[in-house]
């Protein structure tokens, strides 16, 4: 249903047969609306009470396409019903009332209504309600894909087991992963990356924030959650109940999708994630991502994978636990890894099953490396990664890296995403070590290039923490890691040695990683992501703003076109409190 069309089989063309549930305590209106909707060739069910409506909806989960409800109901507030429907069934809900006061209408919108009609309602208003159904589906698909993409990156990052000292997964091309819905950080005014079209302020669901969210959800118990409870537990002052509600909605959606997709677990068999610590973050990242994705407003699209090149980062063990909060992920450039496109198992990116060796404790990170295979491009499609970019045949782009940093809890907290679902796939990073990626995964070479010195990183770490160095977004052209011309210019300054594979020739996707401390990019491309950095990753290829310390030369070769594919808005993942870099426009929005 998500991808297209509606779940109910209809012989006639949509919107004929649209299944509408009308809820109104006024019997006169109920009769009129029923007649009107029937005249529109819709299938109508009427209900006089909110609880009856919920009952009907719960009974037949896929039995309705849209709900129309009056605001004033005797047994339950219409807005409450709206919330329930949105969260539980994720159906579009239209509110109605004879009262057209702005405050009421606003309330409706805030609670998630997709429209607010004033009584008396005209036929023509009802004729067009199908657009809400269609729009929602389209957005859902997109959101899920973004989420999956993020997870994949995450997984890649975590799972990349590097034999070397940690190739850093160069962040994915965040800028390219930018969802059409731009996310504007509610707290930062800056628009991450390209997005500009969003009108409403959106909450940036940073990895950290998402982590809190997930923890709250798990604490309450997934089946007992409600936005209020979560909000209380999260204890984030600026967050509103509405933010949480919509995020929860997406989260649920995401999880259910994961469940469905769980068939192909990419257990990145070969990719063993030797590095550990990252796992957590990766996981959490994934979760965060998913959450982000779910939220429309959240530009979790930070997953900017450029399609198939999922940068699998091997997270260096050391990166994680030590004081540096960054996660060094090694890029698992395993030719056959699921991560890369070539991965034989087609998995859906969604099932972020890749568990990168790392301690991906959170099952949530279901980064599906499978995505990296040919499916990958599709998955990320919503990230605006142009399909063309996602070249399967090219080296799979392991975008994951970018994510790994996202998951790093800035302050060392491991983001453990506990998804009630599938355990993260394990990606054995062995092959990924990039070294021999002869196969499709070209990432390897890339990784080789980027090698992060631990020392450097550490030094950076401190800086990063303090100063958000991260934003090193470097674009890695996944596609062709082979000819990676490693830029040795490490991004110094804050020790972000981001070695960009300058020669990203076929790298259609540039992964922008907001990597904070970049170790010297030499052979092993190691990107150490510090929590803050991740956020900086904007997959938007086009707008890669490199911090001054960043060696622009690195990106010189990066074809810009890669960027636009993914406008991954890492900003979402960015915890505003932590990465000030983002504000510096380092990330390509």
């Amino acid at each position, binding site marked *: 249903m998500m991808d297209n069309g509606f779940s109910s089989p209809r012989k006639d063309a949509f919107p004929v047969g649209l299944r509408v549930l009308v809820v109104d*305590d*006024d*019997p*006169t*209106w109920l*009769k*009129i609306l029923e*007649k*009107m909707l029937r*005249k529109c060739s819709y299938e109508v069910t009427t209900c006089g009470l909110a609880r009856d409506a919920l009952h009907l909806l719960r009974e037949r989960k896929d039995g309705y396409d849209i709900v129309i409800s*009056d605001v*004033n109901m005797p047994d339950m507030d219409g807005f409450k019903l709206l919330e329930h429907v949105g969260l539980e069934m994720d159906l579009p809900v239209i509110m109605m*009332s*004879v*009262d057209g006061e702005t405050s009421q209408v606003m309330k409706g919108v805030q609670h998630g209504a997709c429209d607010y009609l004033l*009584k*008396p309602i*005209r*036929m023509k208003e009802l004729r067009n309600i199908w657009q809400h159904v269609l729009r929602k589906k389209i957005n859902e698909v997109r959101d899920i894909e973004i989420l999956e993409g993020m997870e994949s990156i995450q997984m890649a990052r975590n799972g990349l087991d590097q034999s070397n000292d940690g190739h850093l997964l160069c962040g994915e091309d965040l800028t390219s992963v930018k969802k059409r819905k731009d996310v504007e950080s509610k707290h930062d005014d800056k628009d991450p990356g390209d997005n500009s079209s969003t009108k409403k302020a959106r909450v940036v669901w940073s990895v950290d924030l998402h982590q809190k969210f997930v923890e709250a959800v798990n604490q309450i118990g997934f089946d007992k959650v409600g936005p209020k409870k979560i909000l209380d537990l999260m204890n984030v002052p600026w967050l509103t109940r509405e933010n949480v509600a919509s995020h929860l909605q997406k989260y649920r959606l995401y999880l259910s999708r994961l469940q469905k997709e769980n068939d192909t677990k990419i257990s990145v068999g070969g990719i063993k994630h030797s590095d550990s610590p990252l796992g957590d973050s990766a996981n959490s990242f994934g979760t965060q991502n998913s959450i982000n994705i779910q939220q429309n407003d959240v530009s979790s699209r930070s997953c900017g994978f450029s399609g198939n090149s999922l940068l699998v980062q091997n997270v260096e063990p050391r990166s994680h636990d030590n004081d540096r909060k960054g996660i060094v992920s090694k890029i698992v450039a395993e030719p056959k890894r699921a991560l890369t496109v070539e991965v034989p198992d087609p998995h859906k990116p969604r099932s972020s099953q890749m568990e990168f060796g790392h301690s991906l404790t959170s099952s949530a990170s279901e980064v599906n490396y499978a995505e990296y295979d040919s499916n990958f491009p599709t998955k990320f499609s919503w990230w605006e990664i142009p399909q063309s970019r996602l070249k399967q045949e090219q080296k799979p782009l392991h975008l994951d890296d970018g994510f790994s940093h996202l998951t790093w809890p800035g302050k060392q907290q491991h983001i453990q995403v506990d998804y009630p679902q599938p355990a993260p796939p394990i990606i054995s990073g062995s092959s990924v070590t990039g070294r021999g990626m002869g196969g499709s995964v070209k990432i390897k070479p890339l990784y080789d290039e980027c090698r992060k010195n631990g020392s450097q990183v550490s030094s950076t770490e401190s800086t990063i923490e303090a100063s958000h160095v991260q934003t090193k977004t470097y674009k890695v052209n996944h596609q062709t890691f082979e000819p990676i011309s490693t830029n040795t210019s490490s991004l110094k300054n804050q020790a972000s040695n981001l070695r960009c594979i300058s020669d990203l020739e076929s790298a259609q996707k540039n992964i922008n990683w907001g990597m904070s401390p970049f170790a010297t990019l030499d052979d092993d491309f190691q990107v150490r992501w510090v929590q803050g950095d991740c956020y900086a990753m904007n997959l938007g290829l086009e707008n890669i703003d490199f911090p001054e310390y960043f060696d622009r030369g690195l990106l010189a070769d990066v074809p810009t076109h890669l960027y636009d594919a993914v406008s991954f808005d890492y900003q979402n993942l960015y915890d505003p409190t932590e990465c000030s870099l983002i504000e510096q426009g380092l990330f390509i929005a």
Partner: protein
Amino acid sequence: MERNQLHRLVALSRQPLFDQGFLDEQFLQLEELQDDANPNFVEEVVTLYYRDSARLILNIEQALERNPLDFNKLDILMHQFKGSSSSIGAKKVKAECTFFRENCRAGNGEGCIRTFQQLKKEYATLRKKLEAYFQLTRQVGPAETACRPK
């Protein structure tokens, strides 16, 4: 009476309902909804309205007997009633509802009572007129009555 004359009579009798502001476009919408599947749709809806709204009127009357007046409750009840009245296009009745709510918001108990009296008058007047109208249309035949006034 000839068919044609009946039709004309029907048309003539319904026109003033609109001209004099008793009914608005919503009533026309109802007429448009009337078809072969529901040949008496308009009358059915109006009947349903009067039946259901009687309950609401009673609730308001009871609330108005309270001392002190609970304006919030009154406002809510009237909101319901207004919504219902909008369903058949009862224009004058709706206007009285608005006045009533204004009085509620102002905390004007006297105003509320006065407005409510007026409202009940309009409500009763409309009912009579519609009853007469439907009687006529029944004679003519439902399908023929659904015609738009100019």
